[in-house]
């Protein structure tokens, strides 16, 4: 496949003194554009390592990770940060917005890091924010936003660079049920309408209905858990 995220036989080891911990054990997964998959599992199962490897934050010890058909298994740190900037959208736990930038600027900074913020970029940012229901909040600062709003800004930020792959790390960790549903349904909607390959790591079983497939992570091994009927998703 040429698009999306493709991991094949990926293992990752941590050296702790003389012993070696296997955080990822021959993980293979393929996420195509427009697909929204979930990875669940207890803490310590290797979910974060999985996300870090998929998100070009960490180089796998073994195996191959392909983003849009290009292998990122053996590129330099500088190249990794370029890939993160252009090809990956991160939605982090507790949103992690920059406290002194207003909502618009949170999105502009992505373009700024790549060079310049053009007029089109600003228009695109405004459109994204409106789409995510933040029309009134363009000039608001993070401390003036609710948890759900912050997370929506984080979604917009992840989409700003028009990446092929969206990675969400516990996006509902700090939200109540209603907000959590809002946020995840928004992610699902954007992922499908914009044809992104999306992976969400979560503890929250309530959110699994939004996903096409659910994988379970245990002791570094990733296994398919259940298949969601596709029609049900479309109606949502």
């Amino acid at each position, binding site marked *: 496949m040429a698009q999306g995220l493709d991991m094949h036989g990926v293992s990752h080891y941590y050296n702790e003194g003389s012993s070696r911990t296997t955080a990822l054990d021959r993980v293979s997964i393929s996420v195509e554009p427009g697909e929204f998959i979930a990875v669940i599992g207890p803490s310590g199962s290797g979910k*974060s390592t999985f*996300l870090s490897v998929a998100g070009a934050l960490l180089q796998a010890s073994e195996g191959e990770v392909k983003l849009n058909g290009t292998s990122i298994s053996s590129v330099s740190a500088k190249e990794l940060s*370029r890939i993160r900037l252009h090809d990956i959208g*991160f939605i982090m*736990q507790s949103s992690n917005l920059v406290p*002194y930038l207003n909502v618009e600027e949170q999105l502009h900074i992505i373009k700024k890091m790549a060079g310049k913020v053009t007029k089109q970029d600003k228009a695109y940012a405004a459109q994204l924010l409106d789409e995510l229901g933040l029309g009134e909040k363009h000039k608001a600062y993070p401390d003036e936003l609710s948890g759900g709003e912050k997370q929506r800004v984080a979604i917009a930020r992840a989409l700003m660079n028009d990446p092929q792959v969206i990675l969400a790390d516990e996006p509902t960790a700090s939200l109540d049920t209603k907000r959590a549903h809002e946020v995840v349904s928004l992610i699902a909607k954007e992922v499908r309408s914009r044809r992104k390959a999306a992976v969400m790591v979560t503890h929250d079983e309530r959110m699994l209905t939004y996903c096409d497939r659910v994988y379970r992570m245990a002791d570094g091994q990733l296994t398919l858990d259940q298949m969601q009927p596709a029609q049900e998703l479309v109606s949502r």
Partner: protein
Amino acid sequence: MYLAWREIKRNRMKFSLIAVIFILIAWLVFILSGLGNGLQTLAAASFKNMKADYVVLEQGSNASVSKSLLSADGIDIVSKMPNVRGASPVGTTMGTVLKGDASDPAAGKVDVAMIGIEAGSFLEPAVIEGSGLSSDRADGAIVNKSMKDEGFKLGDTLRLDGSNETLTIVGFVENETYNHVASVFLPIDKWRTITFAAPGSDKGIRNPVNALILQGSKIDPDAVNAALQGTDTVTLAAAIMGMPGYKEESGSITMMLAFLLVISAFMLGVFFYVFTLQKSNQFGVLKAIGARNGFLGKAVVSQVMVLSIFSILVGVALTYAVASFLSKAMPFILDTKLVIIYSIILLVIALLSSLASVRSITRIDPLKALGRVE
């Protein structure tokens, strides 16, 4: 700049506090440099003002004009030497002038530095009031305008303490001080009469003076020493350094400034470093979404730059404000050139001290942004 400026705008309080500290440091640096400059001027302005390059002194005088005594006859020889554009003798004597007139013994005294020069030579400073020295007026003297504050005016007689000699003020000059007191320029012959009043004090030298001052940039000091027996030729700067107490005085000020600059480098460095540590999670997030080290480094450095330039400018403004309030008796002289030099030094120090922060950025692991490294 994008991040730097927005952060400052959103966190005015935090950055104002740092700016206040930086401003105080800059202020102290400028005040100290002004004081140092003022003291140096007080000590040696009359020699620093001389449009001269070399000073011929007696051998063994350790480059000190006051320790030197030689004959002015050497002028004829040295002025014919290559590269010498001008040569003129000078003599300096510390003296005391009585205030008021003879009927009022309680009027007090003023210390002065009597500098004997040839009337009309290149050593004579331009007067701002009255007229210059002239060979027909043997007792005429031009004095620093600070003598006005002591109650002297044009045409007044200067009665010398412990001498029967008197001088008449024919003109005033400005910024002429020597050995921390006002300079009084007088014809060299009169100076000899006053200085060598005691028999034998001239050591039998014909036409004795303290030094011969030379103009000419490429003079060979060794050639001058060879042509004039028993002389030691040094640069004007060396002769100024050789003045009693001059080196020590400027040394203490320089020492204070050096310590202040070193301490401020550490202080600012620590502040910027703590700032960066506080933000390490935020920088981790930015790195996770693709920020390069260079982008974040630039943000930190440009922030330090904005803060420094602002603080230094305020410091300069405060210094000039203080200067306008200081009393005239305070030896405080702000030299624009020095202010610019110290501004640049402070800016460089601030930027260097932020390098530790930049280095710590490169070590921040973007994995931190995930908040739970397994």
